[in-house]
Each structure stands twice: as structure tokens, then as C-alpha cells.
């Protein structure tokens, strides 16, 4: 893996608490806003996407890829990472409950593909994923991701 995901994440939150899926998406949205990636409007757009199309953003067991489409609320492409202390139900038939929310914002339909490849590469490895989710601090997540990139 050549791309270091640690450098691509605009914010990392570990062991966060969310009472429901909307709050979990808001945490990922707050991370994008804090990283200067999006405005707060994008957070609401990510929630609206789920209200309109259902919880399809829960793309794998325990993982939600919160996102909306390229819009004025997207200032640049970026990702946020939120691991949840307590799993949250998104209403997905087979992949609930969610323990990791990745917030994704993109300016177009192609620029972020390398980053998504890196996300898929990291999270499809069960052992790596377990270590990432067990991380107590953002620095631990960054160190783990940087370690993977140098391999």
C-alpha cells in the first residue's frame, strides 16, 4: 500500500458516544467541518441521503460510509474517522450495528478513488480493522495507519 491513510484523514475521533445514527453521522460531519473539508450544511446533506435512500451507507458489517454528493458545501475532498464506544443501529438488514463511521466528501466523482481504495484495503483486513477499532486515541489510529502504509 503506497497511500498513507493517516495523512488523508482530516480528523480522527475515537471511542465516541452517539445515541442514534443521526448523531453518529453528525460526529463524522463535525470532523469534516473541523478539518476544513466541508461546511455544516454537508453534515445535514449526509443525514438527508440516508433519510431518502435508506441505510445503504452501511457498506459492510459495522462500517458506515457517510457521504453526500459533490456540492457547494464541499470545500475540498476529505475523510473523517469516528470509532464508536457503543455500537449504533442504522436500520440495515445485515450490517448493523455500526462501530465505525467514515465521513467522505468529494469535489467530483473520481478524485478520491485512490483514498477509497486505501480505506477498502485497510478495512477489509479483519485483523487490522480490529486493531484500529480498539485504538483508544487518534494518535494510535494514525500510528497504525502509517505503519500499514510503510509496509
Amino acid at each position: 500500500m503506497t497511500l498513507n491513510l493517516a495523512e488523508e484523514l482530516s480528523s480522527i475521533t475515537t471511542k465516541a458516544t452517539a445515541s442514534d445514527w443521526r448523531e453518529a453521522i453528525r460526529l463524522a460531519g463535525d470532523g469534516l467541518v473541523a478539518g476544513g473539508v466541508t461546511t455544516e450544511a454537508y453534515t445535514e446533506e449526509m443525514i438527508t441521503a440516508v433519510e431518502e435512500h435508506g441505510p445503504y451507507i452501511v457498506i459492510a458489517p459495522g462500517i458506515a460510509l457517510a457521504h453526500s454528493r459533490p456540492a457547494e458545501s464541499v470545500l475540498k475532498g476529505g475523510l473523517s474517522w469516528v470509532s464508536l464506544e457503543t455500537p449504533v443501529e442504522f436500520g440495515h438488514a445485515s450490517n448493523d450495528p455500526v462501530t465505525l463511521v467514515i465521513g467522505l466528501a468529494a469535489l467530483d466523482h473520481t478524485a478520491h478513488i485512490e483514498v477509497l481504495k486505501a480505506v477498502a484495503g485497510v478495512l477489509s483486513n479483519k485483523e487490522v480493522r480490529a486493531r484500529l477499532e480498539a485504538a483508544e486515541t487518534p494518535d494510535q489510529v494514525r500510528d497504525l495507519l502509517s505503519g500499514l502504509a510503510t509496509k
Partner: protein
Amino acid sequence: MKIVAVCGMGIGTSVLLKMNAEKVLASLGIDADVEAADIGVARGAAQTADIVLTSDELAPEIGDVPAEVIIIDNFFDLDEITEKLTPAVQ
């Protein structure tokens, strides 16, 4: 062969699905054009596609299309994608 990977917004889940479908097709040695699309575009694109890949939630939104609609639960699971895609492409 044309395959369309569909998600709500066309930037996230469909792109992941396209990447993993391409990996599976390469390992099966099948030459296919895989396109990522949002649900609005997909209704049109699906008219000319052979296969549509999407999630359980979005499948009803695609509506009536001539393409075979395959539902993927775990977008990271190459085994699941291989298992569901293989009978459709061979």
C-alpha cells in the same frame, strides 16, 4: 458486457463496489466494463447494462430494468461478490 454499480450519490459505495467487482472480474478472467453511477443516472444506465450491482435498500429504487440486478450486502467481501457475480457473468 456492461455492469453498473449503483449507489445513492455516486461517489462512495458505488465506487467501492466498482473497484471490488473489477477485482473479481479480473480474477475470473472476464472482460467487462464496470461503471459507477448514482441512482438518478443509474435508472438510465441500467437500461443498457447487462448487470446492475447495488445494495438491498437501493434495489427497489432502480425499478424495472432489463438488466439482472444483483444485491451485495458486504461491499468489502470479495467472496460474496465472487459468489453472486460468477453465475451471472458465465
